[in-house]
């Protein structure tokens, strides 16, 4: 976890500058900086929460931390991690993508159509990603150029994409029999299933994009202060468009993992994925007002939500309690972010 977000660079030392200049404004005492960093603990709510959950579940059921269970938790978290990363880019610009899960459903159906038509796996996968990207592009253009509220736009595409999925599939699932896909969902290196490796590679790339490229800086600047970013010449509309495309592409990749896991492309509503992707982002300490984000945070948030559901299942708690517990955890996390500076 080489975390070098704005957050971290911001807490750099406070050496007094301009030795030659008159001692104008006194430099910040470095002790104060340390204290301020402590107040950033809320940024790490997800990590703290994850550790607490692990300790509780492990003490109640010793199989929780068995290699087999860890492996299945990681695999179960892969799709959510991918979706949460896309959501993070959107939220970092102070937007929200309510259509991620439906976009994934549509992309899965497109995958199924292309595959069933006999075009082979690579083309099917590409089609799924393109389908996701197209939905993202529509979202992005409507939000950035059409100046319609992100909430309304993506609520609209949420409905439109799942409707389209139903129309295209005629409401029927398409069974996908493919050895490589089966391998993707079941194969592993050590305790890391291939699907979670895919998710972690995406997380690494996303981290580099967000913190090591001009685009990433412009994403944070657009979310932090769009007017200021615009005045320096940052193309904030273009940035806003692209983050939705990223979210759409990742929903497309998520659909591949989903089809691999289910073994079929179904037009099922994946509402839980939408809620959980936003929840993972909030748990990850990403500001819903934009401008502050990490990738590692939402990834841990996604792991936490998966561990929560897994642990409850392991303890034999009824499935009916899962949405309730997720809701409580998310509201708790949102409450913690009030202490964010």
């Amino acid at each position, binding site marked *: 976890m080489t975390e070098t977000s*704005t957050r971290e660079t911001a807490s750099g*030392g406070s050496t007094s*500058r301009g030795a030659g200049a008159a001692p104008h*404004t006194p430099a910040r005492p470095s002790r104060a900086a340390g204290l*301020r960093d402590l107040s950033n603990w809320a940024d790490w709510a997800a990590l703290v929460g994850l550790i607490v959950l692990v300790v509780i579940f492990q003490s109640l059921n010793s199989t929780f931390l068995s290699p087999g269970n860890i492996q299945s938790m990681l695999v179960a978290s892969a799709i959510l991690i991918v979706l949460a990363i896309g959501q993070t880019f959107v939220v970092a610009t102070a937007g929200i993508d309510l259509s991620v899960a439906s976009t994934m459903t549509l992309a899965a159906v497109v995958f199924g159509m292309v595959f069933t038509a006999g075009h082979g796996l690579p083309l099917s996968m590409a089609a799924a990603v393109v389908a996701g990207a197209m939905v993202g592009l529509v979202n992005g253009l409507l939000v950035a150029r059409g100046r319609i509220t992100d909430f309304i736009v993506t609520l609209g595409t949420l409905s439109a994409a799942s409707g389209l999925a139903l129309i295209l599939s005629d409401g029927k699932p398409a069974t996908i029999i493919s050895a490589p896909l089966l391998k993707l969902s079941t194969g592993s290196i050590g305790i890391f299933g291939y699907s979670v490796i895919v998710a972690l590679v995406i997380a690494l790339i996303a981290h580099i994009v967000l913190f090591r490229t001009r685009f990433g800086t412009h994403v944070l600047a657009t979310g932090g202060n769009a007017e200021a970013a615009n005045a*320096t010449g940052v193309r904030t509309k273009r940035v806003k468009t692209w983050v939705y495309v990223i979210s759409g592409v990742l929903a497309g990749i998520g659909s591949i993992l989903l089809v691999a896991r289910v073994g079929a492309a179904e037009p099922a509503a994946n509402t839980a994925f939408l809620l959980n992707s936003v929840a993972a982002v909030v748990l990850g300490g990403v500001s819903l007002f934009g401008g502050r984000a990490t990738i590692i945070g939402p990834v841990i948030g996604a792991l936490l939500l998966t561990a929560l559901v897994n642990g409850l299942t392991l303890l034999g708690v009824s499935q009916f309690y899962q949405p309730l517990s997720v809701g409580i955890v998310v509201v708790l996390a949102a409450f913690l972010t009030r202490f964010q500076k």
Partner: protein
Amino acid sequence: MTETTPTPTIPLWQDVPSDALLDVRGVSLAFGQVRALRDVSMHARRGEVTAIVGDNGAGKSTLIRCISGIHKADEGSIDFDGERVHFRSPEEARSAGIETVHQNLALVEDLTVWQNLFLNREIVRGIGPVKLLDRGAMRKEAERMVSSLAVNVPAVGARVRRLSGGQRQAVSICRAAGFTSKLIIMDEPTAALGVQETARVEELIQRLRDEGHAIVLISHNFAQVLKLSDAVWVMRAGRCVAGRRTAETDGDEIVALITGARAGDLADEPA
């Protein structure tokens, strides 16, 4: 200084030197029903501080937003550095050499000082087709830019959110001065500052001028305008009603021009 302040025979807006750096001619801009700028003409010379004064809502910020590419004038022309310009974006104005310190401080609070200094001017390193930020180079260069300021700014790695008003203003000015700018526009740079911080920003403006930068300064502070500027333009209700060489005017005349107690240079101006 003359003891009387007669209206000049040729109004300053018609007396454009051939090597003027900035020449705004007949610029108009309306926001729906609000006619924010009406037939504004003014110019700025190289190596000088050119002040723009006027009441709140007179159109000063709107004028400089036209010059810096944020707004596009409905009518009129802008010549910069000898060429007609039609900026469609702040990026184009910056490329042409116009840097602006906006009234509302165009800094992103959640980014660090160095990230703000290099916003949209990021230094990248190519690794194949992939271009990654050269953070080290930007930090180092930011240190250099900031240490040349007369204002103490904390570590360039500090987030802007933690800076005082004066420090933020210093960062903004530093950014404007740091790149190869021919013209630095400052919109009320000391409006939100205390006495000491104001003095320091004024020193900074003088130093930039001494280094050869041309500056357009919007200010409400008459003492500051008289002290720093070489020429002053007065705006009233969307019009640029008068221009004076600072040496040939005084505070009283400027106040009278701002309030309308004294007629400006425009022939058709309503009383």
